């Protein structure tokens, strides 16, 4: 049991960190611009592919820097020449634009890199076992991922609280209309924020692409879950996004560890349920099977009872 808890904890925190890397960028974009960027996970995928390509030329470490910057440039382009164009037509139009982008980015990746997974590998320096616990090895690369996540959070936090641009961005996270009144160049800040947000997604892609698998379906897999994190954590709050990522990471991981079903619960109360019972599917559904969809349940409950999310500064 201790074993299970330890691993669920470690795995949960790590998965949470990956979620946070993805969602921090979306939190910025969503909170400030109100854009439900459906293509966020596509930028994540783009980051992984860029990193793969760059690493075949110059190795992993330069790719770690260059790939997110490239993704940010693509993001800036998208904001400047596409999103801004539809901004006046409201958020639904912006959302649909990013929806269309998902198709385009997907197809471009098919065109350039084909439909197969690419061989994007963990750098050899990090390809060893950091330590072992209860006989299970902990790969060094996971430690590295965690480290990058922490560095990213700290850096973002400092940028947002210590720099002028950061303060403006933060102000506009909670009061998007105010910044305009203050006379700041909002469109430029929007471009900056969108580039930063997509760049962060790109970074997540660089880090996760080789640990998981770099293939054209990786964006679809990550798509909606990022929204859950952002909304659950609350708009305008980076810390909220971090906590939400951790909660969702831990909840899904712990659920996998537990083979409990409602039938077991009733059994412990002395109520025997058979396979033939009415709605047997439901009673015998094990927690581990529904683990990955628990976040959506949490999301719905959160929105019903606390629409501004965990740490949101305003209602969504």
């Amino acid at each position: 049991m201790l074993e299970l808890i330890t691993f669920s904890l470690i795995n949960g925190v790590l998965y949470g960190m990956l979620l946070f890397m993805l969602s921090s960028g979306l939190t910025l974009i969503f909170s400030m611009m109100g854009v439900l960027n459906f293509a966020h996970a596509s930028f994540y995928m783009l980051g992984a592919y860029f990193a793969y390509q760059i690493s075949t030329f110059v190795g992993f470490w330069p790719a770690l820097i260059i790939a997110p910057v490239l993704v940010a440039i693509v993001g800036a382009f998208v904001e400047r020449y596409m999103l801004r164009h539809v901004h006046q037509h409201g958020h639904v139009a912006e959302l649909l634009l990013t929806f269309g982008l998902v198709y385009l980015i997907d197809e471009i990746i098919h065109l350039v890199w084909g439909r197969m997974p690419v061989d994007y590998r963990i750098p050899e320096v990090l390809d060893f076992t950091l330590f072992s616990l209860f006989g299970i090895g902990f790969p060094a690369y996971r430690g590295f991922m965690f480290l990058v996540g922490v560095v990213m959070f700290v850096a973002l936090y400092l940028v947002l609280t210590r720099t002028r641009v950061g303060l403006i961005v933060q102000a506009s996270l909670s009061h998007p209309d105010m910044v305009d009144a203050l006379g700041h160049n909002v469109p430029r800040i929007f471009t900056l924020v969108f580039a930063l947000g997509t760049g962060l997604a790109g970074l997540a892609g660089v880090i996760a692409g080789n640990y998981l698998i770099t293939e054209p379906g990786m964006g679809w897999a990550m798509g909606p879950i990022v929204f859950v994190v952002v909304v659950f954590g609350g708009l305008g709050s980076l810390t909220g996004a971090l906590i939400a990522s951790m909660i969702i990471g831990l909840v899904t991981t712990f659920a996998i560890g537990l083979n409990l079903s409602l039938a077991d619960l009733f059994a412990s109360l002395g109520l025997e349920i058979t396979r033939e019972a009415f709605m047997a599917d439901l009673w015998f559904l094990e927690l581990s099977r529904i683990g990955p969809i628990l976040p959506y349940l949490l999301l719905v409950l959160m929105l019903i009872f606390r629409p501004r999310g965990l740490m949101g500064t305003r209602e969504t």
Partner: protein
Amino acid sequence: MSEQSIKQTPAHIAPAPRLRLLRGAGIWIGALIVVLVLPMIFSSGHSVSMLTQMCSAIVFALSYNMLLGQGGMLSFGHAVFSGLGGFIAMHVLNAVNDGALVIPLELMPIVGGLGGLAFAIPFGWISTKRAGVTFAMISLGIAELVAASALMFTGFFGGESGISSNRVVDHTLFGFLGVSYGPSIEVYYLAGAWMLIATFAMYLLTLTPLGRMANAVRDNPERAQFVGYDPHLVRFLQFSLAGFFAGVAGGLTVINYEILTADALSAIASGTVLVMAFIGGIGFFFGPILGAILITYLQTSLSSFSEAWLMYFGLIFVGMVMYAPHGLAGIVMAHRPALRSGRAGKLLLSYLVAAVPTALLLVGLISLIEMGYHLSTAYMPEYPISLFGVEVNVTQLRYWLGAVAITAVGLAVFLWVMRLIRRAWHEVNAALGGERT
């Protein structure tokens, strides 16, 4: 309209078109004739099946627009109701096949509708308390939950293979006419009839107190409270009715395909209906009809024309959002003042002029995309492909240069001609006294 008079208007709402009313019986009779005649023109089995699917998609897209266009509710989970309604209809149809129930096949869409309604009531109650992003996100969460459940509760949803049935049942209303609903043409006419009925019903709904208040709540939920209405209840009722019509669409799908899988309530299905409504134009009652027809056509046909169909789909989609945010209906309606005043001739001329560079531009772009795909995915890229009657070897640079040149020339002339069109447009509309604001 003077500059001054609109200065108090927030910029983002200024050009939003009103929900226009379709007036007169003429348009309905016209629609009836179109529905009757279409399968005589497009008579192959595949076309008839596609037309039937279009009928179902029209009902679905219109029901979606009851939420987004009329009620201001952006839903990412509308397919939940068409899907669940469809599954209910499917189970009822199976019960009919087993002889456990006696319901004529013609009424299956109503069964689906009631199924959709039954689920829309609880889900609607919890999700319509608030509008905006909260509503959107709850709908996303519910959609994911239901879609995931569909794979877990295999008893009801049949797992990934879904549930199938047989639409040829013993009892039908028109059986005495020799109608069995085996041949797809008979099913098409059934779907067409239901499509007309549902469309008419949804149209009338916009003219009722609830329909009007749905618009009011969309525009300003707070003010709606101060004229005595509970926005939650207004949204809830609108949502439930939309769920009903979505279920009708689900019932039509069941009859057409005789199989329903979990895909029917997936996030993709929900996204598709959003796309249909938006591309068609959510500001107009008939907009989603155009969107449903176009998207259904593209989805079923584009993929058999080109392996790059998703690229074209994405491009068309992004292009529409960027340059025609009021949808197809917006384009149509923008021409109405000019048409009415008989000044459309001038516009038409400039469009004709524009057709040449547009065609050139398209030829260039399509060539580039097709050549790119051929180069990337073909096993032997040097194997020539035929583009617009020209044998093209994509490994040779000159063909690429040619395609780029066509595109560039097309684009340059296109941009130049567009200036002419813009001028013509301004002239025509200025002459109309700025009727269009």
